[in-house]
């Protein structure tokens, strides 16, 4: 089971660093959605199903949509 933990942490770190280094803000919000997904699995792994369900309910649809609406109303490229 340790291999699942290592894999999830690897995806988490890669997506997190990628979200920081991107110039396009929409791509960053997609990568933040991936980070939220991996964090939800990790919460389930350490035995906290309530927190995992909260993270899933908010990070799956709502968080990405709010970021996209905010990016649509302002600029798209980071200076």
């Amino acid at each position, binding site marked *: 089971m340790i291999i699942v933990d290592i894999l999830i942490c690897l995806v988490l770190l890669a997506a997190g*660093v990628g979200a*920081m280094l991107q110039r396009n803000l929409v791509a960053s919000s997609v990568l933040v959605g991936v980070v939220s997904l991996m964090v939800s699995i990790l919460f389930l792994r350490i035995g906290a*199903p*309530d927190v*995992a*369900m909260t993270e899933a*309910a*908010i990070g799956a649809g*709502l968080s990405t*949509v709010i970021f996209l609406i905010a990016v649509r109303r302002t600029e798209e490229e980071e200076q």
Partner: protein
Amino acid sequence: MKQIFSLALLAITGWLLWSLVPYGQATEPGPVSSHYIAHGLQENGGSNLVTSIVVNYRGFDTLGEVTVLFLSVAGAGFVLRRRSGQRRVAPRPSSEFVQTGARMLFAPMVLFGVYIFVHGHLTPGGGFQGGAVIASAVLMLLLADRDHHLPHGFMGWLESLAGFGYVLTGFLGLAIGGSFLANKGVLPLGQWNRLFSAGVIPIIYTLVGLKVGTELSTLLDVMVDSGRDHGEADAHGQKGGAA
């Protein structure tokens, strides 16, 4: 340059947290936690210990949390409202798949959200998670049908009544049980693992679920809708409402 600096800061913070915080080691629970673990089931009657802590032992903090959520949604809704004279390009109507799928899936999603907050004392979940699922169902309708109007008056009344009901339950606990938001003696504790058990906890979580669901739906409607022209001509010269 800025990115290298942030990466270095991240690495230093990670190393500091790794060496200072004992991850993965089982620590002994303190006196308060031991009391919750030992007596949580018989004092509350619900299977979910997290729910009984959130609603009963720390119920006043949950009331404060619901208030903070209400204030933040009110503030965001006020700032993001469409001012008179603002117009934006009306969106193109979505495809047949999305419209039909959204209409078919709306009812099961709302039912699932209601299941989550009604069973808050039995399975993981509760008011906030169920409210977020209901708001996601309303978001799906808003994305699929560009002319969908949410009944703002009804949702405002529902949200206010749910919040008022929470405080009223607290006063009921004060009148019957002896302290604000008390769980003893207001409603019977019932048998373990049944739907009608755990005293006032299902009622409180139902009210919280309704409140959070309608709140987040209103916020999403304001955000998606800001700048939409109801019934006026949009930038392409066509009347709004032609699907």
